[in-house]
């Protein structure tokens, strides 16, 4: 009989909090982190949810010399991994094979866009040339800790971190590794801020997921990781699992480079597969943490897909992106942490800034946070550009 994969630890840093405890507090009190931009220079006055720390502050926290080459994405990653390792009591793991799987798409772009002309014209910032690609970012984080025997970088835009978690589980199941630290990290860059802006899908105000008047998304940044291992290993190591990773699904919309199909075909497939993989019926899901970016297209497509898959009974559903912003490649793991917190603390996260139900949907999201609700099974969606749709199912342990 296949072993259960459990979540034995987690770490997170985002606009709403610098660690798990701050994140929980922000969720329970619906604290929105979407505000002006401080860490990059841009002509645009677009609200974003930035991580509070500067790069300099993160280097100090991590005891990294200021002169060392490190991108913001990798610094956030280090902070979150450190918390995850600590929470899973992983300090010395010589006899174990541990993987680090980091989803990212921008990598070191936030430095590359600053030093672009120098890269072309002189040797001043050569040390950042090799820090640009996604894999370099992952290895920077891995090397800070040392000891990882498998290091990988899935990069599927907004579903990267969810795919990282899936890969982690698969590697454990096959025996390639014993433990996987899996998730993602992404900082805000001018590149993708302008990219999303050119697609006219950024809201000039705080976003309104699943609202009839929604006008786009807000970018966020952050890093989050889950520590995954088999239930047996967690027992051996005397670590109490936080919850179970019951199942997952990955499907492709195969419709358009950026838009989702109107009926949400890819979303339907991903959610259905995740349910089948978990051995659960749709009616057994108590809460869906939606991708819910607040764009006209996603919320319609995802909403229709949810209505189709959960036609018998639509569970509580909310998007937390109106609190955290859209953390793009990290969203899958940021929101996985949200789901685990919801299960552990018996609450349904609220869909901040919602007021008017979408006319084409038969449901409204859960607007306010709901406490004292026991959640047994939770589904989390992450849908990326290019139709890379992924869904994860988390369940209460025991």
């Amino acid at each position, binding site marked *: 009989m296949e072993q259960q994969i459990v979540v034995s630890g987690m770490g997170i840093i985002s606009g709403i909090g610098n660690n798990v405890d701050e994140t929980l507090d922000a969720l329970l009190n619906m604290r929105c982190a979407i505000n002006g931009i401080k860490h990059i220079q841009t002509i645009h006055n677009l609200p974003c949810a930035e991580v509070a720390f500067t790069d300099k502050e993160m280097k100090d926290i991590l005891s990294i010399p200021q002169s060392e080459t490190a991108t913001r994405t990798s610094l956030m990653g280090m902070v979150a991994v450190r918390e995850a390792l600590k929470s899973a009591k992983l300090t010395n793991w010589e006899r174990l094979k541990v993987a680090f799987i980091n989803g990212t798409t921008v990598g070191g772009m936030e430095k590359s866009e600053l030093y672009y002309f120098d890269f072309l014209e002189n040797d001043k910032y050569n040390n950042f040339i090799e820090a640009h690609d996604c894999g370099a970012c992952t290895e920077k984080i891995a090397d800070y800790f040392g000891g990882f025997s498998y290091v990988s970088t899935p990069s599927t835009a907004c579903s990267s971190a969810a795919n990282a978690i899936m890969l982690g589980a698969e590697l454990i199941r096959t025996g390639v590794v014993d433990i996987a630290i899996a998730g993602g990290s992404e900082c805000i860059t001018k590149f993708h801020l302008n990219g999303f802006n*050119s*697609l*006219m899908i950024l809201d000039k105000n705080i976003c309104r997921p699943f609202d009839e008047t929604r006008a786009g998304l807000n970018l966020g940044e952050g890093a989050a990781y889950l520590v995954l291992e088999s239930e047996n290993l967690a027992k051996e190591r005397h670590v109490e699992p936080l919850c179970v990773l019951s199942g997952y699904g990955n499907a492709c919309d195969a419709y*358009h*480079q*950026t*838009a989702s199909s109107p009926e949400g075909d890819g979303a339907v497939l991903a959610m259905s597969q995740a349910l089948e993989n978990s051995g659960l019926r749709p009616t057994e899901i108590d809460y869906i943490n939606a991708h819910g970016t607040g764009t006209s297209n996603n919320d319609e497509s995802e909403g229709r897909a949810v209505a189709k898959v959960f036609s018998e009974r639509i569970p509580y559903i909310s998007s937390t992106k109106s609190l955290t912003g859209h953390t793009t490649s990290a969203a899958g793991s940021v929101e996985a942490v949200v789901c685990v917190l919801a299960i552990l603390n018996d609450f349904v996260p609220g869909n901040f800034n919602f007021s008017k139900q979408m006319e084409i949907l038969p449901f409204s999201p859960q607007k306010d946070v709901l406490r004292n609700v026991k959640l047994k099974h939770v589904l989390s969606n992450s849908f990326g550009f290019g139709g890379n749709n992924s869904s994860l199912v988390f369940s209460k342990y025991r």
Partner: protein
Amino acid sequence: MDELILNLKKEIIEVLNLEDLTPEDIDANAPLFGDGLGLDSIDALELIVLMEKNYGIKLEDASQGREIFKSITTMAAYINEHRTI
């Protein structure tokens, strides 16, 4: 107006990378989207950028494009009326 239509055709061919087409190939009254030239939603965004960059017209709402970009002729008429450059 004829000159504007010709210029628009050239600009559209360049910006949308329609390298196999010449201005003579494009019927100014034919639909740009769906049938006709067969442009899509990304092209619509590109045309919005073109209008701002070359003619100083800023569209705040992408859906306004539906009427304006019906054909090259409608586009030229709108530009003629609203251009600031």
